[in-house]
């Protein structure tokens, strides 16, 4: 029985792709959510009461770094359609957007640019930050299993 995870990540190129997705995504989300500050000093900070949000960001980054390379593998090596790639990308974007707005620079820029529509969108993304991230994680998990299942079938046929 083929293990899709091992199959994909036995190739160094896909490990490199996974790291290239995980690292900037994690660091970017941690900066936007104010867990990491770059000025005036580079410092990490996990305020009391924000541990759950931090954990969700880490899970989201790990899942994105697994699901997206698996889909790229399907497309490149098995010459399959790009349809299933959408789940991975969508999950990552939805998860990244949640909570990134809030009262930080992104939220302020959105509200300043788009006025009341931006304020409504920012309030929504802030108010439902945790549920949105959970939905994004759900989408990524679902995408992982459907991709793994199809890889099992397709690899069997191809071998």
């Amino acid at each position, binding site marked *: 029985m083929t293990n899709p995870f091992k199959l994909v990540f036995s190739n160094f190129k896909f490990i490199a792709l996974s790291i290239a997705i995980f690292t900037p995504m994690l660091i970017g989300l941690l900066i936007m959510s*104010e867990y990491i*500050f770059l*000025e*005036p*000093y580079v*410092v990490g*900070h996990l*305020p*009391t*009461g*924000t541990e759950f949000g931090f954990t969700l960001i880490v899970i989201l980054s790990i899942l994105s770094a697994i699901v997206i390379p698996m889909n790229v593998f399907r497309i490149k090596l098995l010459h399959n359609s790009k349809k299933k790639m959408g789940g991975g990308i969508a999950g990552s974007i939805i998860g990244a957007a949640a909570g990134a707005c*809030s*009262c*930080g*620079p*992104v*939220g*302020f*820029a959105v*509200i300043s640019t788009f006025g009341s529509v931006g*304020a409504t969108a*920012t*309030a929504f993304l*802030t*108010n439902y930050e945790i549920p949105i991230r959970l939905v994004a994680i759900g989408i990524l998990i679902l995408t992982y299993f459907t991709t793994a299942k199809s890889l099992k079938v397709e690899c069997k046929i191809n071998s």
Partner: protein
Amino acid sequence: MNKKGVIIGVVAIAIIVGVVASFSSTPAEPLNLDMSRNHGTISTAMASPILGDPNAPVTIVEFGDYQCHQCYNWFHNTKPSITRDYIDTGKVNLVFVDMAFLGRDSSPAAQATYCAEDQGKYWEYHDMLYNTQEDKIDGGWANSERLKAFAFSMGLDMELFESCLDSGKYSKRVQYNTQQAREHDVRGTPGFFIVASDGQLQIAGAQPFSVFKQILDQLV
């Protein structure tokens, strides 16, 4: 002649009544605004009263929104240590400047703090808002009824507080403060300026105590 005298008499009485009425209807509300007050390049004339020793060599100017979660985090995780080590010891003072931009309840919440200031309770009301902040922006926790309920629970004169809040007396004051934030390129809340005699340093975000300590120890 008689007609003229009557007219003059009526006008004189009207003026007297008008003057008396205007004095009696002016509420005895101290404004305590020092219009020349600046900290560094920031006009803090319309901002909060100074927390701590007004003669402290360093001032932290905080730009914040009462609905901002990161401001809540800073209030609970960083500010207590700054208060203990720097404000209570007279080394540093703090001024809060409203940057009310997150939602429709942000400005009324900021205005309510100044209505509380009229009764000498600015910082108590400020602390009350950050202690009772709820997760949802515009979720109702800072609507007009709740703002009045906070005032009631603090034992404020409700007639004065309600007339102040309902009239929007401090609406322009909050707008002025928010404009100060924009003019100083504050792009999110909380935003800080550490102001000393030889300049000012901007800090963005709810940064930990260690960052403030590192900067303040060089200045005091």
